[in-house]
């Protein structure tokens, strides 16, 4: 009886279950793991490509789900929100990602404040959408993105109710008159060199403010005014007065103000520029009005950083631009300046701090990189061909002090070049390095460097898959190959295609699918990857740089770096045998590895007689250090 009842119950339950399933599609989906997995991927991919927006309830999810993942990615990349994602990534890559790069007005229009931080990020994002050159992210010649129209003229400002254009024009003409007045004043001061410079500065300051007030009355916003008339017009005057009135050079000031007056005159044309008179309502970066190629007869400014970025990276009379150098190394070259002792050529050694092997570990790369900024002073002003340099901390170098400062970058006479300025890969072999003098040279180095392409790809990996997750370097470098190929065709838009293809590869990767990945585990490998027992973080680098000499076929010094396994003493370690054929302890093995990777003695530095890139060395060194620290119970 009980048996019969029990059977009836299950039959009934099965029937109910069957009829319910036919009634409800969601019930079928509910129990289908493949449905849950693909739907989860769809949501994540949507957020990754469409700037944080998941799949909206109003979208045809069934249609999306019927497509392949590749098709879905292609479709999402045709959504304009993808441009915001590329801008966001670009800012992340440049180290400038903030809370938001735009704010939204109640009517939905956006103001992209990020253009004032990095127009490069926007130019490159537009390039991806338009099939142009993504590597424009490195260009110094950037358009001016017009974010602001003319300020409105209140009745209080314009009590006689003049026609608006006439009122604005009058105000601009007034600013020209005020500029003439400033010119006359400076000429008169020039003729009276003995004049009290403090009094001069006070009066000049008042006249500058009068010019500024007149432009403000015209309603031309200061962002436009500064870009097209140049904030630096009165650099000599402002810096001289604020920092060191005795350094005022009236001839130079006059020259600057005359250029300024000419630009101010041309600025009047902006009153008839449609994008300024009636600024469009912008909802994505494509719609921002870009002014370029000598608009208003004013030559384009070179933009390596904007004013806002220079302020984030101040220099001082003691740091000698090293903060800026560290920024470039970290963000463009993925070199976080891991302090590893370095072998130095004997001619450079002395008693200076930077010549000590442990200090040189950073300085040999950082100081030459800092040299690209040697003439750049406060808020990014270029002081080349002047006899003064004003730093962000207010300190001023001139004459002898300036010469001493600049001599820090003079190359030794036998080097065959004037400056020791460049991207340094080797402290002992200058043929591996890329030298230059100016920021333009730095841009060329950045554009042509393989390290930069690999770094860019690494940052894409971190952005789309997760920061600090371990990735197989060979896999990342194989993706970066796409950027390398694009380098050869700068005008074809191939770099933008490369950006999209790499993004697609990342979203199709095992790491992306993996919920809650283990940090120390790699989930993706390059095509043709050979399985290895080594930790994936360094297996490729060890194979590339070490295994040639340290393998099971020829373990130089008794050390075999091709195999990572539990040794006879129970420790997971490389095979490292002493003269008697006994396995060294892990502590001893890793102590030896640390020493061999970071000795300042070139005759002992591994790989012996061969070059290993600084980034490879740093990555292996960091892993070895971590392992060594874990053996010693957390003590370094």
């Amino acid at each position, binding site marked *: 009886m009980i048996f019969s009842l029990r059977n009836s119950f299950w039959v009934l339950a099965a029937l109910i279950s069957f009829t319910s399933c036919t009634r409800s599609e969601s*019930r079928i989906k509910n129990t289908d793991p493949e449905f849950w997995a693909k739907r989860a991927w769809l949501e994540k991919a949507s957020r990754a490509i469409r700037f*944080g927006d998941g799949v909206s309830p109003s979208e045809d999810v069934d249609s999306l789900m019927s497509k392949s993942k590749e098709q879905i990615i292609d479709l999402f990349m045709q959504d304009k929100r993808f441009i915001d994602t590329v801008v966001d990534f670009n800012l992340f890559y440049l180290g400038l990602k*903030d809370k938001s790069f735009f704010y939204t007005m109640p009517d939905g229009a956006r103001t992209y404040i990020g253009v004032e931080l990095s127009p490069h990020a926007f130019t490159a994002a537009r390039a991806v959408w338009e099939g142009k050159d993504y590597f424009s992210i490195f260009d110094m010649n950037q358009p001016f993105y017009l974010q602001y129209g003319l300020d409105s003229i209140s009745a209080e400002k314009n009590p006689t109710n003049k026609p608006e254009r006439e009122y604005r024009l009058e105000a601009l003409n007034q600013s020209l008159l005020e500029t003439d007045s400033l010119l006359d004043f400076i000429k008169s001061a020039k003729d009276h060199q003995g004049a009290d410079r403090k009094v001069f500065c006070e009066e000049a300051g008042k006249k500058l403010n009068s010019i500024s007030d007149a432009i403000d009355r015209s309603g031309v916003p200061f962002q436009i005014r500064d870009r097209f008339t140049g904030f630096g017009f009165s650099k000599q005057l402002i810096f001289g007065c604020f920092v060191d009135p005795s350094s005022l050079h009236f001839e130079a000031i006059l020259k600057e103000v005359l250029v300024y007056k000419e630009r101010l005159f041309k600025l009047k044309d902006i009153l008839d520029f449609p994008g300024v008179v009636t600024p469009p309502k912008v909802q994505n970066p494509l719609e921002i009005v870009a002014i370029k190629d000598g608009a208003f007869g004013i030559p384009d400014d070179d933009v390596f950083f904007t004013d806002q970025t220079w302020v984030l990276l101040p220099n001082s009379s003691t740091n000698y631009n090293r903060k800026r150098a560290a920024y470039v190394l970290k963000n463009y070259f993925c070199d976080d300046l891991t302090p590893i002792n370095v072998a130095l050529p004997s001619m450079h050694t002395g008693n200076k701090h930077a010549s000590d092997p442990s200090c040189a570990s950073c300085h040999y790369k950082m100081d030459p990189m800092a040299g690209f900024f040697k003439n750049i002073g406060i808020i990014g002003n270029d002081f080349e061909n002047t006899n003064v340099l004003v730093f962000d901390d207010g300190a001023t170098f001139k004459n002898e002090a300036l010469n001493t400062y600049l001599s820090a970058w003079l190359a030794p006479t036998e080097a065959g070049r004037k400056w020791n300025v460049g991207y340094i890969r080797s402290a002992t072999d200058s043929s591996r390095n890329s030298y230059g003098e100016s920021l333009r040279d730095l841009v060329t180095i950045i554009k042509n460097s393989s390290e930069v392409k690999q770094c860019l790809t690494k940052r894409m990996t971190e952005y789309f898959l997760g920061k600090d997750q371990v990735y197989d370097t060979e896999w990342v470098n194989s993706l970066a190959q796409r950027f390398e190929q694009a380098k050869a065709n700068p005008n074809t838009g191939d770099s933008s295609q490369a950006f999209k293809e790499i993004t697609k590869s990342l979203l199709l990767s095992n790491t992306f699918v993996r919920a809650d990945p283990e940090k120390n585990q790699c989930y993706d490998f390059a095509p043709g990857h050979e399985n290895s027992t080594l930790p994936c973080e360094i297996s490729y680098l060890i194979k590339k740089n070490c295994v040639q000499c340290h393998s099971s076929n020829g373990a130089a010094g008794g050390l075999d770096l091709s195999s990572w396994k539990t040794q006879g003493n129970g420790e997971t370690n490389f095979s490292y045998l002493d003269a008697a054929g006994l396995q060294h302890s892990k502590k001893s093995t890793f102590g030896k590895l640390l020493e061999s990777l970071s000795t300042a003695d070139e005759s002992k530095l591994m790989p012996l007689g061969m070059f290993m890139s600084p980034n490879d060395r740093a990555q292996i060194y960091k892993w070895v250090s971590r392992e060594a620290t874990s053996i010693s119970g957390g003590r370094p």
Partner: protein
Amino acid sequence: MRYWNKFCASQVSKVGRCGLAFALLMSSFGCSRLKDSSEIKAAGNRVGEFKGIFATNRIIVTRLFKAGELKFDLTRYLGGDASLIELLGVYSNIGPLNDFRNGTPNSLNMLLWNMALSGLSKDIAESCGTQQIVIEKFIRIDYNPHFADRLGALCKEPVIDFKNEESLLNFWWAVQGFDAPREEYVAWRDFFMSPQSPYAKASSKEVINAMLKTMFLNPYFLLEH
């Protein structure tokens, strides 16, 4: 801005720092474990950190409200103090460049998340029978039809149909999406559908409030994974 004054203007503001050092385990119940806090710290990457206030706000808007909705701001539930967003996981380029700050759960930011998401859950529950949420008595925001439909299906007495989980499943999908694995849903469903559940005899508003709160505070909803 005047030239003379521009030179003097300080452009760098300081960011407040959260000095609290201990993490709080996420408070949702009946859910499988993502990772315990020590593992999250050992990993050291963004996995296990908050998605952040901006990303979370965006997810809520997409799932709950009409397309293009701009009025919804989760920080309204924090007393209108905009500076508190700094504590809820944000990128900042001030100081060491490009840093995601306050992404690791700790007692203070979990308190803030709890305040914000409890307030939101309560307001949604209170909106039963309407098509819009009312925040602070005067901000009215329309739901998208999909969510309004899913919510409406639960706004009845009794809220739990012990023979049919479909409305519960659809509500889960509408709010939680597919961020969490199915096991999370099953644990959540079983808790509310159990006759022993403390909500078995509660009013629909009480149940919906609890359902939403447990979904919003689920680690898969709040954290990167």
